[in-house]
């Protein structure tokens, strides 16, 4: 493994990598910087050192009631994840531990439902939501997000559960453990890390979903995606405030994402790349 690398080569690669990384990160960095500028500074041209002010954050809350869409995002993404876990865990569990001839077909079919383009079923979903009074309701949106992410959840949980060695189960059975004991004392502790990563990825996906969240809500249930999108038609210049709202909207997910890089690769490639 130990290949001798000259310090000079390492410095060369490092400079290149850091330059590109900063270039890619720049739009995010600039948003954060703009969020602590005054509105006049925000449009005054390129400037990396603002007069640090947190006025924009205060005004986003007082003028636009930022807390409401933020809480909607939290409720909808966490809610859809919990609901999804409730449905997906038993399914993935039985597929991993009691597979039949059809298990693989069922998994493939579940994945295929993910291929349906959202816009293609916009009309029927919109009409169904309208007629059942679910438009602009948190419960409707929660169920919707749960459904669109369910295939990914089942798949991801399945790939995690499959790695739990069956021998341990057999050993427990030999020692006379009942099915209930087996689940509570043997399987659950081994399954928790996989469930946690799946839930984390699902919260990220639900938080950033930007088709149904925008189209199925107006005011009451609008999460951050819809809230930010409503800034698209500018009335006067308010980039500093928009930046403050944007920073708050992406910060929690950015931090969660940094911690879940590996799980992300696994989850989004359905276990094909580990």
């Amino acid at each position, binding site marked *: 493994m130990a290949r001798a690398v000259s310090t000079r080569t390492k410095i060369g690669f490092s400079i290149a990598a850091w330059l590109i990384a900063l270039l*890619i990160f720049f739009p995010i960095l600039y948003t954060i910087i703009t969020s602590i500028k005054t509105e006049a500074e925000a449009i005054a041209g390129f400037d990396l050192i603002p007069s640090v002010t947190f006025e924009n954050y205060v005004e986003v809350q007082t003028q636009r009631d930022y807390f409401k869409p933020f809480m909607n995002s939290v409720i909808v993404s966490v809610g859809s994840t919990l609901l999804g876990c409730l449905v997906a865990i038993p399914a993935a569990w039985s597929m991993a531990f009691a597979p039949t001839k059809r298990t693989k077909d069922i998994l493939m079919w579940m994945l295929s439902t993910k291929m349906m383009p959202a816009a293609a079923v916009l*009309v029927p979903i919109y009409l169904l939501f309208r007629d059942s009074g679910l438009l602009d309701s948190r419960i409707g949106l929660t169920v919707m997000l749960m459904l669109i992410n369910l295939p990914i959840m089942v798949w991801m949980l399945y790939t995690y559960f499959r790695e739990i060695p069956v021998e341990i189960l057999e050993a427990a059975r030999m020692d006379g453990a009942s099915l209930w004991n087996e689940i509570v004392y043997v399987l659950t502790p081994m399954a928790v890390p996989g469930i946690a990563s799946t839930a984390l990825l699902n919260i990220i996906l639900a938080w950033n979903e930007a088709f149904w969240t925008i189209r199925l809500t107006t005011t009451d249930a609008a999460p951050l995606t819809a809230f930010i999108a409503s800034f698209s038609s500018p009335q006067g210049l308010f980039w500093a405030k928009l930046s403050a709202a944007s920073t708050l909207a992406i910060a929690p997910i950015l931090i969660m994402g940094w911690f879940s890089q590996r799980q992300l690769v696994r989850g989004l490639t359905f276990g094909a790349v580990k």
Partner: protein
Amino acid sequence: MATRQTRTLARSMMAPSVILLLAWMIVPLAMTLWFSFLNYNLLNPANVSFAGLFNYQYFYTDPAFFQSIWNTLLLVGGVLLITVIGGVALALLLDQPIFGQGIVRILMISPFFVMPPVAALVWKNMIMHPGYGVLADIARWLGVQPIDWFAQYPLVSIIIIVAWQWLPFATLILLTALQSLDAEQKEAAEMDGAGFVSRFIYLVVPHLARAITVVILIQTIFLLGVYAEILVTTNGGPGYASTNLPFLIYRTALLGYDVGGASAGGVIAIVLANIVAIFLMRAVGKNLDR
């Protein structure tokens, strides 16, 4: 080993997921198909009649339809080209010894976690704005006329924004695949005198082939549905210059109130997506057996 009892248990544990997804698949699909044969306008809901293939014909003769399909393909193809080539390059770079590798990685993957409306608005207002954007500042500093990105190159601008969002995803997956390349193989190739280029062509590319396939197919699924980025930047314009198929469907349905027409567009979008899906299912399915 499986007794009848465990089989029944397994089946009932699977039932909620299967039933939910079955309903989620069949109900909207059947409704879309049914609506696509109707004259159905939301402004005149009392007057619904059977239209036969009229909606398809209408969509087919609408110049916006072909432009939107072409735009969809350009958007998907353009972003794939940038992200796959850029992703391979960045993954190779990140695989080298670098000071502060962890931080570099975190900076590079960050755009993927930015929600689409934020990404699009940041680029629209602060980077690409012809008056106040950073690119305009640079252009003026160079003494060049700043480009009005969204008016002059609407689709290209959207491709750039979407590529910025997906480049981290491609990089991350390709890097993960690259790191599973056997170090001994690399060393052996080096000892045999293989240069960087031949190592890249004969060792790295074949090793990355599967990961690249996965990146292309998964991105295609998401890229076929790009919506929010268009909504908050160009709103599909000027004219139909940056309207893709999902956006045209949205426009027909919720701005034109034409349920039948939008449903016909939806059926076409489903057919398009399915062609892609067949390839993806094969690639992933093969992998299940390993």
